[in-house]
Structures are given as C-alpha cells and as structure tokens.
C-alpha cells in the first residue's frame, strides 16, 4: 500500500501540490485524473522520488520514502515499475535488451534464465516475436507494451503509469487498459495511473482521485463519479466527452 500524508510541493514559492493525503491499495487500479496543470504529474514524480516534496510523506508499506537513506531508497525503487508517457525505452537497446536490462542490473540470473523471464514478460503483455527489434521499429502501442514488460521484469509491488494511453488510437488504448488491469489483479500490485481518458476511468478504475489546481478535489469509486455533485469534476467529465 502507498500512503500520502499532507504532500506539498512548491516551485519558486508557487505551491503546485497543496497538501495531498490519500491511500492507494494493492490489487486495485488507482487513477489520478484532472486537467493539464492540475498537479497530477508533479504528484506522481513526488511519489516515485523524481521530485522531493516540500512537505509531507510518501509511505511505501510504512516506509517513509523521502526519509530513507540512499540504499533503502534504492531497495524501494527496485519494487517500483513505471510506464512513462513517452515510453522511455532505451533507443540503443533491442526490445529484449530493454526488458532484460533491470534483470541484468539487479539479479544474478544466468543469460538463459534472463531470456526466459523476458519471454514470460512479453507473453504477459501479449507481444511475441519482437525480441530483436529496436524501439524505433515498433508501433506506439507495442512500445507501451514493451514499457509495461520492462516495468514488470523484476517482481515489482508498485506500478506507476503516466498517461499510458497518450498518443494511442482508441482500440489500442483499451488493449493497454485491459493489460494494466490484468497485470494488477494477477500480481496484486498497487497500480497508480495518471490519465485524462475518461474511458479508462469507467473501464478499469477502482479508486479515482480528481486533482484540481493542486488540490485533491474529489475522491471516490468509479460508480460515484457520474453522480458526484462536484462541479469541477462534472465539468471535467463533460468536457472529456466533447474532446
């Protein structure tokens, strides 16, 4: 479980996150939604440690991430996988090498064991026969799948996804959503997804957080989203359908 308590972040005196507190439970798809500039990406970066919060705590199963020493931080990070908006695959590595990379760095697996694990991860994301291709040679949807396969190569406990559907067609977006749902349930991971795709919200969301101007403006289950009387949330949902 990931717990945030009173998380604040300022840039040059401008407060971008204004005291976020919430819990993300394992085995559930936790969605952070909101308009651009609402603080979603900053919140995620604070959670994974790419930014240091000005105030507040990020607890990974009661381990206060920003108060750990370097070694402990690295240990926690090895339990984290992240799917980036732009995939962040290593251009000079093939698909196989990209997925193998964390295994090479952090395990004592033999080359044959590593390749088995790579193939297992590729099967999990329903992608086979692309081992020797470079990221530039595969489609956007395939890159997302490779990104997911790399994220789950180590036995991770926490999966973060930043706009997993950005730049994808609606059909591929649904495939990626289903994939994230399958993986989350199967491995009982704590999955946190930044998105403004309302289809994702209604398809796979378990817990929804709506961010507005740096605040947690609304929190609830997907069944409550439509019936919420939060004006900003309703405006966001309605605007999404006219995109």
């Amino acid at each position, binding site marked *: 479980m990931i717990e945030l308590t009173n998380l604040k972040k300022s840039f040059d005196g401008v407060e971008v996150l204004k005291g976020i507190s919430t819990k993300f439970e394992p085995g559930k798809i936790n969605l952070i939604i909101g308009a651009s500039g609402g603080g979603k990406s900053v919140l995620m970066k604070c959670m994974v440690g790419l930014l240091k919060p000005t105030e507040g705590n990020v607890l990974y199963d009661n381990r206060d991430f920003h108060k750990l020493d370097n070694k402990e931080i690295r240990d926690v990070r*090895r339990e984290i996988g992240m799917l980036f908006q732009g995939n962040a695959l290593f251009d000079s590595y093939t698909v196989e090498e990209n997925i193998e990379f964390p295994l090479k760095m952090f395990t004592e697996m033999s080359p044959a064991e590593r390749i088995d694990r790579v193939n297992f991860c590729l099967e999990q994301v329903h992608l086979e026969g692309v081992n020797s291709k470079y990221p530039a040679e595969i489609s956007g949807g395939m890159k997302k799948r490779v990104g997911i396969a790399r994220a789950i190569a180590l036995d991770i406990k926490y999966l973060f996804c930043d706009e997993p559907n950005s730049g994808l067609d609606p059909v591929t977006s649904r495939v990626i959503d289903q994939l994230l749902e399958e993986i989350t349930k199967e491995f009982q991971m704590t999955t946190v997804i930044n998105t403004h795709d309302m289809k994702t919200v209604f398809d796979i969301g378990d817990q929804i957080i709506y961010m507005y101007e740096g605040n947690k403006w609304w929190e609830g289950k997907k069944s409550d989203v439509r019936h919420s009387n939060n004006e900003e949330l309703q405006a966001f949902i309605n605007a999404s359908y006219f995109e």
Partner: protein
Amino acid sequence: MISRPEKLSVYWERTALEMKNIGAGSLAIVAIIAVFQGAVTTLQIAYQLISPLVANPVIGSIVSDSSMLELAPTITCLVLAGKVGSHIASEIGTMKVSEQIDALEIMGINSNAFVALPKIIAGVVMVPCLIVISILLSNLGGIFAGSASGILTADEFIQGARESFLPFNLAFSLIKAFVYAFIITSVSSYHGYQTSGGALEVGHSSTKAVVYSAVLILFSDYLLTQLLL
C-alpha cells in the same frame, strides 16, 4: 555525483562499447587530420627555413617535435571535442528529455554513474591511443610531403626526428591527451545531463559542450605548457 557502480559487468560492457565508439569511431577523422597536418607543416617549415645554412633533417625534427608537443594532441582533441563531445552531449541530452534518465533513476540506478562514467573512462583510455596514432601518421604525412615535393628525403626526415626525440615530449603529449580527454567527456556529459526541454535544447547543449570543451582545452594547453615545459 558518481557513486559505486551497481553491477561492474554491465559497466564494463558499456565502457567497452564506448571505447569502440570513441576509439574506432574517431580513427578515420584522426588519421586524415594527422596526415594532412604533418604534410602541411613540413611544407610550411621548409618554406620558412630555406637557407643553405639549415640542414634538411632540421625540418624533420621541427615537424616531429611540433606534432608531438602541440599539433597532434591539441588539434586532434579540438576536433574530438566537436565529434565526440557533441555526440556525448546530444546522446545524454536526448536520454534526459525522453525520460530515459528518469527511467534509470526509478529503477534505482545512479544515472550519473551509469551514463557518464563509462564515457569518461573510455575517453581517457582511447584518446591517448588516438594521439599516439596521430603523431605517427603526422610524421608519415611529413615524410610523404617532403619526398613528393623534393624538399627532403625520407631518410633525412627520420634522421631529424630521431635526433630531436625526447621521451619526455611523448610523455607530455600523453599527459595533454589524458587531460583533454577528461575535459571533453566530463564537460559534454555535464551539459547533456543539464538538458531540459526538447530537441532545441538538445542542440543547445551539444553546442555548449563543444564550445566549453574547446575553450577549456586551449586554457589547459597553456597551463600545462607553462607548468611542464
């Protein structure tokens, strides 16, 4: 900034790859520059020293010494600052703007060490090797130009070069190469790492890396010459 590597075997693989890129990848341009540098220097020295009082082997000794002390290390490294430096800065810059550096950090890998260290080690190993090759080819260029123009024979050139050869000059040249290699790789890695934004900023970082490396090479050239000669 740079801490103990997570897994040495992976770092060694990356260092070997960078050695190939920096060393073998720069060999052609270094060879071309060295040959023409030696040839042109020979012709210019001959032009300036035409006198019955100056023996022909003196031309060989001047060309050989100036190649070793100044031309091979400094000119070659200024060119390498452009070739290798811009490549390093743009590679790391692109990794930064495409979130590949963030991906490394999230995996728990010290991205500074993982990205920059193999390049710096490869540079300080391979650039001195390139400089030695450059010195040899520069002399060959001088011999060729001297013979082709009838200014001096190959034997006269070699006689001059051998008579004026001091092992310290070679050591000085290698010290310079080592220092310049460190400047090129570390300054370029730094500028690549400082990139934020998009393609335009990657270009800016690449330019900055070349300019700063070149200025620092010239400054350290003066400093080393003042200190060691």
